[in-house]
């Protein structure tokens, strides 16, 4: 009798908590099968955006490179001509490179950009095998052309 009171009853009480918890939903994200929705202000992979007309927003001013605390952005600008026009302004970026390994995804480049060209989107699957694969060039960062109507 004493045994039931001192051992069995507390044990059942403890298992009662377990039974209550079993009713709750599972909280695990089954990651590779289902990707969880990222928080609204999550900052991950950079994208160089375009206007609706297809022109690049980036004007090659290097303000993002100046704002970058990790010094991971390299911008080389050139003049637009009427024959080869890439952006609406005077200048455009010939080379735009980001070292994703150095980048700390702080979003200062996005804040500094006067035209809203560089934005940090939510694609987090960036891991890779070799160091050389992490220097993202302009071709990799640039948004695809909008579908012309």
């Amino acid at each position, binding site marked *: 009798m004493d045994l039931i009171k001192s051992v069995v009853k507390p044990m059942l009480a403890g298992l009662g908590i377990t039974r209550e918890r079993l009713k709750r939903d599972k909280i695990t994200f089954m*990651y590779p099968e289902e990707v969880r929705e990222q928080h609204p202000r999550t900052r991950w992979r950079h994208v160089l955006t375009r206007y609706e007309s297809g022109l690049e927003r980036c004007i090659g001013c290097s303000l993002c490179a100046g704002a970058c*605390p990790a010094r991971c952005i390299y911008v080389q600008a050139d003049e637009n001509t009427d024959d080869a026009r890439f952006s609406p302004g005077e200048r455009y970026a010939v080379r735009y490179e980001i070292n994703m*390994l150095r980048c700390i995804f702080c979003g200062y480049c996005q804040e500094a950009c006067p035209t809203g060209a560089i934005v940090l989107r939510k694609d987090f699957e960036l*891991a*890779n*095998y*070799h*160091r050389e694969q*992490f220097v993202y060039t302009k071709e990799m960062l640039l948004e695809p052309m909008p579908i012309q109507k």
Partner: protein
Amino acid sequence: MPKRVETIVLHDTSTPVLGDTQKGGNIVLTSAETLINQARANSLWPLTFGLACCAIEMMASAGSRFDLSRFGSEAFRATPRQADVMIIAGRVSKKMAPVLRQIYDQMPEPKWVISMGACASSGGVYNNYAIVQGADQVVPVDVYVPGCPPSPDALIYGILKLQEKIKRGRSKSFKDLKLIEVNARTLETVEA
């Protein structure tokens, strides 16, 4: 009268990543190499090598919300003798570099290294005299995971990349088919 074989799943080199979801009939044919690679890839025991804030995310990925044990990596080992993969989570200072190397040397072959976060992979914002500019100056790194810090799902993606790499490993001689004391670097991997 033997039972009729319905389907034979043939594993050959043209199948990109073997195993996992392939369900056929009653018989599975495979090579010893594939079997060993599958076993290695699905029981990666990480070494707890948290050096900075990335370690918090590494711990979070082992927690119930992201649950690293779904991939057989739940057993974080505090001793290098029982670990397969070293997750360098955080900035490696010049003072820590010899320790990192010694612990890597103490891990039994085959062994892999994941460099987690900007600081471990390249130094990140700490471009100064105290921090090693990339852990690959000290140990060979298999997978780099960028981010500051990488979220648990980004780390899990890195671990999945490493599993893919291990599954693509090809042995060249009978020596490579040993279960232990195989240098993972001698197994040439096929790029995706």
